[in-house]
C-alpha cells in the first residue's frame, strides 16, 4: 500500500512535469503559427518585401519551438497508459476517440504541411506555399481542440453512462462531448492565450530589433501587426475569462471556491485581489473589492457564491466520507497570477494602441521596456492557468466519477523514478538548447531590404538542403 502511494505521488509529479513542460511550447507555437500565416498572407497580397523578411525571421522562431512541441507531445500519447492504466481502462471509451481523431486530423495535417512549408518554397506555387502554413496552423488549432474536448470531459463529464458490469465509463453521445459547456469556453480561452503568447513574443522581439537602423522599417511593421493581434486577443480574453468563470461556478463550484479561498457561502461576496498571511484564518493584509465576486460569478450585486465548507459537506453527502477540497493556496495564487497577467497584458496592449494612435509608438522608450517585459508574462499565465485547472479538480481525475488515487498504474515506484529522472534531465537539456537557440535567432541581425533575402534558412544553405 505504501508503494502504491509512492507510485501515485511520483506519477503525479511526472504528469505535471511533462505536461507543464509540453504546454510551455504549445501556445507559442500556435500563436506564432497564426501570426506568421497572417504576415505571409499580407506578403502574398501586397508583395511588400518587408512582410517576407518578417516571415523568414519569425518563421525560424516558430520552427525551433515547433520541434520541441511535437517531440514532447509524443509523451502525452503514451503516458496515460504508462502511468495511469486504471484511468485509461476506465475512460478509454470516451477519452480515446478524441486522442485518436487528434492524430488522424491534426497531427498528419500539421506535420505534412509544415514539411511542405519548410522545404517546398521552390517546388510549389506561392499560393500553395501560403496554403501550407495556414494548414499547418489549422492543424495545431485542431490538435488543441481535440485534446481540450478530452480534458473538458474530465472536468465535466457529459454524454456518458457507467457500464455496471465493468465499471467503465462508456460513450452515449459524442455530440454532447463536443459541445460540452466547459469545452467551448476552454477552447476559446486557450486559443486566445496562444494568440497573446505569440503576439507578445513578436511584439517584444520586434521592438528589440528596431534598434538597428537598417532593418527598422521591417520590424516597425512587425510591431504594428503584433500589437493589433495582442490587443484584440487580450480584449476578447477579458470577456471570455468572465464567461468561463461563470461556467466554472456552475459546473465545478469547488474549484472556483478554492480559487477565491471563499470558505463559507456568502451573499454579495467581495473579491480579494491580494492577500498576505494565511488564507484561512490569519490574514495579515488583504485588498478586497466589495461585491465584485458575486457580480463576476452571478451577474448580481448580492448573488450567492457557495463556500468551501458547505461544498465539502455536500460532497461528503453525495460521494461518501473523504476530503474533497483541493490545495487552496495553490489555486488561490495560480488563479490570481493568471488573471493578473491577463489584465496587465490588456493594459500594455491598450497603452500601445493609444501610442500608435498618437503616432508616438516607435519613440516611446517606456513602452519598449514594457514590450520586452511582456514576452515571458503569457508563459507564466499559461502555466498557472493550467495548474489552477488541473489541481482545482482534485481529488478527482474525472470530476465526480474517478479519484486520481484510483487511476494510477499498478507499477513499482522504481519504474517511475527512472522515467521521472530521465524526463527531467532530458527536458532540462532541451530547454537549455531551445532557449539558447531562440535567443540567438531573436538577436540575430536580419538582412536589410537592400541585401538578398536569407529566407528561412541559414548557415551556408546549399541548394535545397535545409536540415
Amino acid at each position, binding site marked *: 500500500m505504501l508503494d502504491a502511494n509512492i507510485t501515485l505521488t511520483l506519477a503525479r509529479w511526472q504528469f505535471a512535469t511533462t505536461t507543464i513542460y509540453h504546454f510551455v511550447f504549445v501556445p507559442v507555437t500556435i500563436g506564432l503559427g497564426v501570426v506568421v500565416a497572417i504576415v505571409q498572407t499580407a506578403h502574398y497580397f501586397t508583395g511588400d518585401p518587408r512582410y517576407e523578411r518578417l516571415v523568414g525571421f519569425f518563421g525560424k522562431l516558430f*520552427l525551433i519551438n515547433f*520541434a520541441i512541441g*511535437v517531440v514532447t507531445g*509524443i509523451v502525452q*500519447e*503514451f503516458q*496515460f*497508459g504508462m502511468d495511469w*492504466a*486504471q484511468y*485509461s*481502462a476506465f475512460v*478509454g471509451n*470516451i*477519452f*480515446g*476517440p478524441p*486522442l*485518436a*481523431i*487528434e492524430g*488522424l486530423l491534426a*497531427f*498528419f*495535417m500539421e*506535420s505534412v*504541411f509544415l*514539411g511542405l512549408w*519548410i*522545404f*517546398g518554397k521552390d*517546388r*510549389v506555387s506561392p499560393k500553395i506555399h501560403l496554403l501550407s502554413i495556414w494548414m499547418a496552423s489549422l492543424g495545431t488549432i485542431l490538435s488543441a481542440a481535440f485534446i481540450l474536448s478530452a480534458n473538458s470531459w474530465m472536468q465535466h463529464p457529459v454524454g456518458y453512462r*457507467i*457500464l455496471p*458490469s*465493468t*465499471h*467503465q465509463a*462508456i*460513450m452515449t453521445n459524442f455530440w454532447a462531448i463536443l459541445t460540452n459547456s466547459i469545452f467551448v469556453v476552454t477552447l476559446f480561452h486557450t486559443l486566445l492565450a496562444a494568440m497573446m503568447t505569440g503576439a507578445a513574443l513578436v511584439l517584444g522581439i520586434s521592438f528589440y530589433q528596431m534598434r538597428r537602423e537598417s532593418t527598422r522599417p521591417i520590424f516597425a511593421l512587425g510591431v504594428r501587426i503584433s500589437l493589433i493581434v495582442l490587443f484584440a486577443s487580450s480584449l476578447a480574453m477579458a470577456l471570455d475569462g468572465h464567461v468561463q468563470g461563470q461556467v466554472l461556478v456552475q459546473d465545478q463550484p469547488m474549484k472556483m471556491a478554492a480559487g477565491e479561498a471563499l470558505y463559507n457561502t456568502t451573499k454579495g461576496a467581495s473579491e480579494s485581489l491580494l492577500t498576505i498571511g494565511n488564507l484561512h484564518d490569519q490574514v495579515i493584509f488583504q485588498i478586497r473589492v466589495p461585491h465584485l465576486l458575486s457580480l463576476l460569478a452571478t451577474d448580481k450585486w448580492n448573488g450567492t457564491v457557495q463556500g468551501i465548507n458547505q461544498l465539502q459537506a455536500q460532497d461528503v453527502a453525495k*460521494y461518501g466520507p473523504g476530503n474533497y477540497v483541493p490545495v487552496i493556496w495553490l489555486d488561490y495564487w495560480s488563479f490570481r497570477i493568471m488573471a493578473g497577467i491577463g489584465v496587465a497584458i490588456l493594459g500594455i496592449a491598450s497603452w500601445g494602441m493609444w501610442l500608435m494612435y498618437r503616432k508616438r509608438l516607435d519613440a516611446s522608450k517606456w513602452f519598449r521596456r514594457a514590450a520586452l517585459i511582456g514576452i515571458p508574462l503569457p508563459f507564466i499565465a499559461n502555466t498557472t492557468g493550467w495548474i489552477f485547472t488541473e489541481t482545482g479538480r482534485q481529488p478527482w481525475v474525472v470530476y465526480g*466519477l*474517478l*479519484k486520481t488515487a484510483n487511476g494510477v*498504474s499498478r507499477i513499482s515506484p522504481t519504474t517511475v523514478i*527512472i*522515467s521521472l529522472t530521465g*524526463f527531467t534531465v*532530458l527536458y532540462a537539456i*532541451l530547454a537549455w*538548447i531551445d532557449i539558447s*537557440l531562440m535567443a540567438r535567432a531573436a538577436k540575430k541581425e536580419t538582412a536589410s531590404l537592400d541585401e538578398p533575402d536569407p529566407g528561412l534558412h*541559414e*548557415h551556408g544553405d*546549399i541548394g*535545397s*538542403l*535545409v*536540415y
Partner: protein
Amino acid sequence: MTSPIPDSTNTAISVRWSTEIGAMMHVTAEQLLWFILVGVLWAGYFFLEGFDFGVGILLPFIGRNDPERRALINCIGPIWDGNEVWVIVAIGATFAAFPLWYSEMLSNLYLLFFTVIVALILRGVAFEWRGKRDSARWRRNFDLAIFIGSALPAFLWGLLFGDLIKGVPLTASGTVVGGISGIVTPYALLTGLTTLAVFTLHGSVFLSLKVGGYLRGRVNAYVRRIAPVTALVLFVYLSITYLIARSDGHSGDVPGMIPVAALVLIVAVTWLSRERLFGWAFVATGAAILALTATVFMTLYPDTIMSSIRPALSLSITRAASQPYTLNVMTIVAAIFTPLVLVYQAWTYWIFRKRIEVPRNTNSEPEQVR
C-alpha cells in the same frame, strides 16, 4: 447523476473478468475491423518510418562528411515527421478501440516505451536543430542523436511485438510479473534484431532511389552488402518462430505462407540489387514489412497480448474492446478522413520526388556510380 465508483473498486480487474463480457467471446465484425485497422496503422508506420530509421542508422556509415550527411538527412527531411504520426495514430486508435490493450501494454512494458519515447524525442529535435548552428561539434552530436534515436526504436518496436506474440507473464489482474526477465527474452531480442535489420535494408534501398550524384554508387554498394545479412537474420527468426508456434499450441491464426513470402522477398532484394532494379527492391522490402506485420497480427488474433503463464490469461480482443457506440463513432470518422490524409500525404511525396545530391563546391571526392 450516476453514482461514483467506490474507492475499493479496481476498474481494470472488473473489466477483465466481467462475466457479461467474458460470456460473449465472439469477436464482433467491428472489433475485428479495428483490430485490422490497428494492424494497418502499424504496417503503414513500419513501411514509412522503417526507411526513415534505416536512413538514420546508415547516416554515420554512408555519410563521410557534413555535406554528405546533410544530403542523406534531406532525403527524409520533408517527410519523416508525417511518417512518425502513423505510430501516434496507431497508439491513439488502440486507446480508443481497445482501452485495455492500451493500458495493459503501456503500463506493463513501461520502460520499453519510455526508452522509445526518449529516443524519438532525441531524433526529432536532432533533425530540426542540427542545422541551426554552424559548428562541427554541434552537428556531430546531433548526428549521433539521429543514429541512436533511429537504431533504438527500430530494435525496440520489434522487441515489443516479439513480446506480444510470444507472451509475457501476464496475470489475471492484468499486470506482468517477473520484472525485466519476463520481457527481455531471447525470442523478443531476436525479433528486435530482425526489425533492426529489415528497416536498415529498407532505408538503404530507399536511399538508392533518393540520392543523386556520386553518392549513389556508395549507397548501392551498401544495399548489396546489407541484403544477404538481413535475409539470413530473417531466415533464423522465422524458423524459430515456426518451431515455437508448433510447440506452444498457440491459439492464434496460422499465418501460413505470408512469412515465407516475406523471406522470399528479402532474398529477392539480394538479386534485385545486383541487377540494379532498385525500384523493385523497394517494392520488395516494403511488401516484406507489410507481410511481417500481417504475420504478427494474425498470430496475435484473437488476443491482443499473449500471457506466457496460461493462454486463458491472455487479453482477448473482446475483453479489450470499447463498446459499439465508440467503435461506430471511430469507424465513421476514419472512413471520412483517412482517404483525405492518404491523398495529401502521397501528394507531398510526389512534390519531393526529386533525387537529392551533395551540392557541388564542397570538398567531397566524386565517385563512379556503379
